[in-house]
């Protein structure tokens, strides 16, 4: 560490450029990770806030809430933690028809689990059928408490009585209403619900209904897996390529230092000491670059627009930094081979 630290302090420009490169690569990785997690959260925020463990859907719906309908006469007996959920895509507008917004109508029963789990940032839950609670994000679109809104294509108006946190499903804001509103929209009380979301872990299969774990349900959200896999592949490739680049840089740096190393070898300093100096230098470069990029990412996240889904998961980001440090250390193995070949005799040449 003594050799590594002093060399870095003396060759500030040299190593400053390498740290800058590592920082920028790690920054790019963390920004991609932030976007991936942000988008993933927008897909699952509501399901997470409902503390879902199991989802019962119509077997023919291909694990897709949009396609699932459970007839009222097929509804199973509910237990504590189970909630009937009626879901329907819709477009809302202000009373005058302005500010159209795509949304997901989620019809609930007030006495069931979900209505107790969702946290309101403002207002209260609905008491009447003509009252709704909107997702927080709709506040930014000009919606506010006591506002009258309409569902596109309908004459009836609904009054906004509250705003709920973490209320997006498939990146779309939720409009919470009574289950009867959803039933009315669907065409009558013969429609029991779209699905049953439960905070319990259990298996259920009966006639046309089947239970799925939350993980399975989330993986089948439209576009969710493809999006996450794309981001994960980008991050993975970026990490491998960047580590290869850092390995090349370390190789070139080590090549430049071989005459010095030969002199040290002639003086009796062991190969092990020189290898430790090179490896500790790689660890230092990666760690400093990683920490700087985390700070840069955190600062950037403060300046991003609300509409951009971005989430920093600190344990994951720190874990990824450690992986980068480990990969960077592994990439220093190539120059280590060079050091092992240094002959003390070279000091005289």
């Amino acid at each position, binding site marked *: 560490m*003594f050799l590594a630290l002093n060399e870095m*302090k003396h060759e500030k420009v040299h190593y400053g450029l390498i740290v800058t490169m590592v920082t920028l690569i790690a920054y790019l990785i963390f920004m991609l990770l932030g976007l991936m997690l942000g988008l993933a959260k927008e897909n699952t925020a509501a399901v997470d806030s409902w503390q879902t463990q199991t989802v019962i859907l119509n077997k023919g719906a291909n694990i897709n809430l949009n396609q699932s309908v459970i007839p009222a006469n097929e509804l199973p007996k509910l237990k504590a933690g189970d909630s009937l959920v009626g879901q329907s895509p819709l477009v809302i507008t202000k009373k005058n028809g302005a500010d159209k917004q795509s949304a997901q109508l989620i019809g609930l029963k007030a006495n069931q689990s979900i209505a107790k789990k969702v946290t309101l940032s403002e207002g209260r839950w609905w008491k009447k059928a003509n009252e709704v609670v909107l997702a927080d994000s709709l506040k930014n679109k000009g919606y506010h408490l006591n506002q009258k809104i309409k569902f596109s294509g309908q004459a009836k108006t609904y009054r906004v009585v509250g705003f709920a946190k973490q209320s997006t499903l498939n990146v779309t804001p939720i409009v919470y209403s009574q289950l009867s509103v959803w039933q009315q929209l669907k065409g009558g009380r013969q429609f029991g619900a779209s699905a049953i979301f439960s905070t319990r872990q259990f298996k259920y299969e009966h006639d046309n209904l089947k239970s799925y774990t939350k993980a399975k349900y989330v993986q089948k959200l439209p576009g969710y897996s493809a999006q996450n896999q794309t981001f994960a592949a980008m991050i993975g490739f970026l990490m491998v390529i960047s580590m290869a680049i850092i390995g090349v840089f370390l190789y070139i740096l080590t090549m430049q230092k071989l005459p010095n190393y030969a*002199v040290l*070898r*002639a003086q*009796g*300093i062991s190969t092990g000491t020189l290898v430790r100096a090179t490896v500790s230098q790689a660890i230092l470069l990666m760690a400093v670059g990683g920490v700087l990029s985390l700070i840069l990412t955190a600062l950037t996240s403060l300046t991003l627009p609300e509409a951009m889904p971005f989430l920093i998961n600190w344990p994951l980001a720190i874990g990824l930094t450690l992986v980068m440090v480990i990969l960077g250390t592994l990439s220093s193995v190539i120059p280590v081979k060079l050091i092992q070949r240094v002959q003390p*005799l070279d000091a005289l040449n």
Partner: protein
Amino acid sequence: MPVIELKQISKFYGEGVGRVQALKKVDFQASTGELNLIIGPSGSGKSTFLTITGGLQSPSEGQVLINGKETTKLSNKERDRMRLEEIGFVLQSYNLLPYLTVQQQFELVDRVKKQGNLSQAELQHLLEELGISQLVHKFPDQLSGGQNQRVAIARALYANPPIILADEPTAALDSERVKTVGQLFKDLATKRQKAVVVVTHDQRLMPFADRITKIEDGQLTQVK
């Protein structure tokens, strides 16, 4: 008893028709308190002689004994240890790390050799003797050639080895500086009781030597 002993040392480079013999059955001894000058032209085998003596390479034939221990039979690790503890090298390139200050060059020795180095008081005295005590916070590129050379000598002495091996220490120095360096090596031998071996082609160092050995075509002839 000699500190350095070379017995019937031969060194061959290459194979077949391209085979060259750099040293031919060389015998040599050096003792504590002596300045030995190995003098000869380029290509005479000086560097091969020095590197074999210092354990930087092995001879093709013969034995090298340092303090009575045969070095040709040592492992690489043991040879590293021997160079660290028994031999101080003063190389033509001054053997200083460009990114360490003069003070840190000594700290590096402390880190790799924990015991037996000079004390801080002894180091201070040595630096004053060499006229470089005011340069401890400077980097090698902030020093003149002569200053670098004196730092390299101090660094070689800091580990307190019984043997000092120097390779062309007066290359590119003017006559006045050669006298200073010659006297310095003489003092190392006599005052500090080291066995000093200097290989050079510089005849200006001859007045300072206790023993002078000429090397030509890989063969040694003692002339003083």
